[in-house]
């Protein structure tokens, strides 16, 4: 991994994923280490994302590194018409590593080709967000004790949700069974189904959110967004169908944990928060350890 960019979750092999997960656990045990002392990390957020940025910057600070950068494009020279290429060429002369969030898809791959230092993709439009996937994997490993042979339910917007697509690609290394629950309009795209078929991975599609979740080890909830629907009536019809309520968790497995990439709107009722099976806030905390593991591996200090 040393000196390699992380643009897409597919850039990591199964062994590398397991290594990051293992390392994240070590950082959780001992979060304050000076491994990035005398290192400068550029944090370039061409669109605002407070949660992701703070998670990265916390990770860098806990490792004793320093951060330079900007929090949205209006405070960068992009507003003066500078190309992404020029911005990256310049900043890669200053920093040891670049963390980049950008609204355009493919921007991270392009930046990694222009940069003299590794790029960590912190989200490129609707395309990839690999550090989110790594924290999801770490959360699954931590709560289940394994990544192998799990029954994973994904609920909500399975069409546009990039976290869903990246997670299913990464989990495919570990012989899972997938259950996809979504409205007709937001079903998992065919290309992912063909891909799962080619890997021989079992999956089932459902349009109703019922007691089938009693078989789940992981329930991965996502937000159904109004702007995804061409017809507002269709949104009104489905918006309250894919809501998880505490009462629905009665007959679920003891090891079940509920994950959500956050922010949540109303798809998980607040009465679920107190249930020990709710894991989404801890999941967010795991992001700091996963990002510490990723950055220190890429910088070759572990």
């Amino acid at each position, binding site marked *: 991994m040393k000196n390699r960019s992380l643009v897409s979750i597919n850039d990591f092999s199964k062994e590398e994923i397991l290594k990051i997960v293992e390392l994240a656990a070590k950082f959780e045990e001992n979060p304050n280490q000076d491994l990035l002392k005398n290192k400068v990390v550029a944090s370039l957020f061409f669109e605002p994302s407070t949660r992701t940025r703070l998670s990265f910057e916390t990770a860098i600070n806990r490792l004793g590194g320093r951060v330079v950068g900007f929090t949205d494009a209006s405070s960068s020279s992009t507003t003066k018409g500078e190309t992404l*290429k020029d911005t990256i060429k310049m900043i890669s002369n200053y920093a040891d590593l670049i963390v980049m969030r950008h609204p355009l*898809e493919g921007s991270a791959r392009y930046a990694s080709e222009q940069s003299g230092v590794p790029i960590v993709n912190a989200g490129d439009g609707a395309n990839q967000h690999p550090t989110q996937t790594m924290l999801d994997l770490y959360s699954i490993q931590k709560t289940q004790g394994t990544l192998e042979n799990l029954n994973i339910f994904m609920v909500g917007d399975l069409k546009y949700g990039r976290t869903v697509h990246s997670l299913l690609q990464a989990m495919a290394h570990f012989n899972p069974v997938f259950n996809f629950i979504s409205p007709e309009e937001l079903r998992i795209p065919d290309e992912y189904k063909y891909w799962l078929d080619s890997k021989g991975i079992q999956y089932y599609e459902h349009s109703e959110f019922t007691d089938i979740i009693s078989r789940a080890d992981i329930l991965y909830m996502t937000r159904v967004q109004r702007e995804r629907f061409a017809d507002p009536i269709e949104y009104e019809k489905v918006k309250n169908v894919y809501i998880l309520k505490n009462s629905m968790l009665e007959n679920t497995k003891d090891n079940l944990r509920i994950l959500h990439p956050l922010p949540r709107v109303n798809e998980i009722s607040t009465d679920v928060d107190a249930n020990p099976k709710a894991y989404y806030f801890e999941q967010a905390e795991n992001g700091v350890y996963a990002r510490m593991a990723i950055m220190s591996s890429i910088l070759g200090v572990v």
Partner: protein
Amino acid sequence: MSKKKELSVNAIKEGTVIDHIPASYLFKVISILGLDHCENLITFGTNLGSNRYGKKAIIKVADKFFEDEDLNRIALIAPEARLNIIRDYEVVEKKEVIVPQEIIGIAKCFNPKCITNNEEITTKFNLVNSNVLALKCHYCEKITTEEHLVIL
């Protein structure tokens, strides 16, 4: 009616004939192969009748023999192109074009939010195995299929 068919485009002694190019893509093919900067004798005909499809074009380049790699670059726009290698007025070899595994700088990514449609970047795709022509963008990872394919 004379049995001897008149050639629409004069024969060449040595070189390469590229036949069955869709007429609308003639000039694109010329540009992809760099023939617009080529010093050799080039003759071409277009809007010729074709049994395969409406109208075809043909290019004859004297004293030039292309690498397969270069010729395959036209496969996206002229998948049915037939190549005849000519030596002393005789066809000594016939070839077809194959869509290459990696396509650089010919097609446009159909995703408007792709970085290649927003900044000056040479596009790059990988051919995806499927029944229809499908290209996966090296940058945004979205798949452009034949129906959405736009040639740059």
